[in-house]
């Protein structure tokens, strides 16, 4: 089976190559590009299932299931060596399924969505390239290879966000995404170095391979301080890639890319890379409770913070973007608590319903002829029924209504928060739990606000647009339906044992990423009580949203005024974070380098000094010139003076 492992990433690469060639030379027809792109990812998906099946067999015979396939030695410099190798264990297996599965559905969807886009082949080339890079990241056997995939996905998101590059705004968003990702990668890189040299101090020549690291850390040979710095630096990389508090600014702007891109990259796969990396290195993070607490707190903070911004956005994709940031916050919260399987479980379910929501919004935008502002939508329920129903189901899932996949995963995280293990999380569990629940309620509110404003009430989009609205073609609707079904049914994967489920995913992942033992503070009965209470609150919020946005639309304006407008304006303008970053970092950097560095240092000081020397030499030579007066007796006189001087010297000596 190891032989086929390399086929999984290489197939999309092959697809990207062919489509890329097609894009350059225009040789391939739309149909050909279409087939290549989708079949390539489809086969990858099938192979992924086979791999998981193989892992299941291995697990069956006991022992930690793992498939490793080394192809060649990539870099070898002295004692440091990196080989191009792939590692698939249950954790990677799950991610594989998500990336190829959801990826395949989105590929099919994009054939419809991008149907009349001139750069059709280039789009699919980039999407395939992205799948290759993501698979490399997931299956990379050592941290360097993971880093290659890490930057590869950053590159593809840059290419795809700025896909319609003729619009400078979109191109700028692409660049912003890449640069912010690069800041994160800077942290990741430093983390690698600290780890490598930390091990070197202990006399271990590690090749940064995950399997190797696991043994070394197992033999707890590394000092605590090194591990904490490594974990925090790697977490900086994760915040860059998965858009957490400090480095999330690029994700909302990334909505400038085509919607399937947002669905694939900025909802399902790339942004989850950070969560995957931390659970992949769970053995490292478990060594440093401080790092884990930082991850948990940042996760919780982001969850709440992004949800507040989501409340007031009017662009359908922006709302979903902030909701993604918030849901990622939940995943990091889970992983920070040590509940790695809960984090991954939420990652999977989030991939389903968020991809469905994004594709749904894509269908809406498609239907509305490119219109993205929900204030000009409304009453689309009748016009695009399929989109409406899939969108509604996904919204119910994300809200965490009982029985849906969202409920299963989010509740799992909240339970983990409640039962936080004190020696792994230094922050009180109930605080994280309350932040989580508040976030969940906010999520419910803004999601249903979105649904009511878009699909209910009367159409606010102007007469001619009204009869233009039409249902999307089958190629777009089918993936929507599949995803909607998955987001409802997906929860069965890991039914918590409170509801006497068998937690299959949890056990499946226990080998690769063992979770932290939970400390039951509240007791069984109270837990169920809290769960029920949360459900009631959720239903209440749905009703509140219904009343505010449908029954009497005046309420939102009045509420905004009542709240004094400040929190509203703050939230609407996303706490002016972009402007702060701009004034604090970007603009000063430009002015410093323009005025100070180039203007003064380079031109004036360095160049000035050299040209100055040239001027001094010219002036000196001019001065000497004047001595040659041309008067003969002047010269004779200087001879006489010279002679007298010598004589005097001879006389004196």
């Amino acid at each position, binding site marked *: 089976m190891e032989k086929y492992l390399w086929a999984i990433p290489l197939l999309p690469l092959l697809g990207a190559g062919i489509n890329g060639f097609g894009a350059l030379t225009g040789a391939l027809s739309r149909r050909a590009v279409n087939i290549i792109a989708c079949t390539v990812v489809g086969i990858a998906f099938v192979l992924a299932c086979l791999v998981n099946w193989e892992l299941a067999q291995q697990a069956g015979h006991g022992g930690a299931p793992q498939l490793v396939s080394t192809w060649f030695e990539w870099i070898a410099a002295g004692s440091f060596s990196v080989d191009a190798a792939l590692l698939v264990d249950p954790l990677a297996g799950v991610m594989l399924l998500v990336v190829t599965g959801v990826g395949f559905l989105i590929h099919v969807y994009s054939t419809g969505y991008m149907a009349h886009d001139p750069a059709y082949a280039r789009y699919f080339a980039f999407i395939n390239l992205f799948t290759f890079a993501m698979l490399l990241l997931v299956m990379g056997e050592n941290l360097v290879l993971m880093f290659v995939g890490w930057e590869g996905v950053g590159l593809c998101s840059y290419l795809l966000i700025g896909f319609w590059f003729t619009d400078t705004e979109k191109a700028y968003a692409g660049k912003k995404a890449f640069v912010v990702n690069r800041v994160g990668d800077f942290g990741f890189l430093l983390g690698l170095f600290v780890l490598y040299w930390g091990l070197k101090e202990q006399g271990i020549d590690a090749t940064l391979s995950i399997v190797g690291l696991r043994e070394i850390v197992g033999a707890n040979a590394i000092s605590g301080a090194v591990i904490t710095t490594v974990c925090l630096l790697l977490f900086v990389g994760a915040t860059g890639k998965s858009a957490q508090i400090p480095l999330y600014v690029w994700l909302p702007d990334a909505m400038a890319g085509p919607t399937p891109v947002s669905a694939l990259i900025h909802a399902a796969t790339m942004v989850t890379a950070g969560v995957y990396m931390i659970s992949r290195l769970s053995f490292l993070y478990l060594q440093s409770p401080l790092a884990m607490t930082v991850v948990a707190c940042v996760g919780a903070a982001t969850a709440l913070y992004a949800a507040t911004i989501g409340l007031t956005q009017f662009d359908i994709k922006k709302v979903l973007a902030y909701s993604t940031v918030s849901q990622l916050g939940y995943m990091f919260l889970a992983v920070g608590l040590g509940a790695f399987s809960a984090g991954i479980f939420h990652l999977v379910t989030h991939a389903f319903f968020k991809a469905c929501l994004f594709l749904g919004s894509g269908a809406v935008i498609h239907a509305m002829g490119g219109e993205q502002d929900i204030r000009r939508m409304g009453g689309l329920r009748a016009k695009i029924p399929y989109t409406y129903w899939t969108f509604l189901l996904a919204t119910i899932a994300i809200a965490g209504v009982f029985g849906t996949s969202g409920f299963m995963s989010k509740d799992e995280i909240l339970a983990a928060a409640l039962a936080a293990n004190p020696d792994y999380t230094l922050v009180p569990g109930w605080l994280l739990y309350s932040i989580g629940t508040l976030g969940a309620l906010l999520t419910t509110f803004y999601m249903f606000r979105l649904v009511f404003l878009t699909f209910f009430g009367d159409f606010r989009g102007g007469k001619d647009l009204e009869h233009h609205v039409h249902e999307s073609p089958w190629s777009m609707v089918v993936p929507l339906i599949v995803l909607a079904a998955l987001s409802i049914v997906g929860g069965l994967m890991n039914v918590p044992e409170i509801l006497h489920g068998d937690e299959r995913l949890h056990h499946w992942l226990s080998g690769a990423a063992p979770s932290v033992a939970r400390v039951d503070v509240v007791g069984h009965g109270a837990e169920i009580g809290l769960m029920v209470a949360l459900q009631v609150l959720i239903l209440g919020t749905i009703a509140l949203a219904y009343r505010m946005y449908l029954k009497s639309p005046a309420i939102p304006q009045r509420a905004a005024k009542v709240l004094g407008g400040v929190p509203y304006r703050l939230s609407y303008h996303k706490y002016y974070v972009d402007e702060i970053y701009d004034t604090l970092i970007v603009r000063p950097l430009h002015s410093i380098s323009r005025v100070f560095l180039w203007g003064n240092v380079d031109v004036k000081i360095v160049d000035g000094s050299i040209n100055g020397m040239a001027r001094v030499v010219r002036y000196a030579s001019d001065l000497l010139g004047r001595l*040659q007066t041309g008067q*003969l*007796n002047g010269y004779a006189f200087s001879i006489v003076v010279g002679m007298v001087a010598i004589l005097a010297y001879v006389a004196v000596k």
Partner: protein
Amino acid sequence: MVSTSHLLILSAVLFALGMAGVVIRRNVIIVMMCIELMLNAVNVSFVAFARQLGSIDGHIIVFFVMAVAAAEAGVGLALVIAMFRHKSTVNLDHVNLMKG
């Protein structure tokens, strides 16, 4: 008996006079004459040492010095004539083509 020091003092005085003339005077001809004077001063000291050392070489050197002086005077005067034709003056101050 006339000792060599007398002669050397005479030569020094003559040499100094010639040098002063060269520096002070404006007229090229006078300057050339002063040069001749300086050459003669040198001849005196040559002869003095020849006499004192009793070797004939001093006289031969004087002979050569005179030959050179003659050549120098010839060419110098030719230059003066050429200068005069061109600048119609012999005054050194007006001739500063070699200005830096």
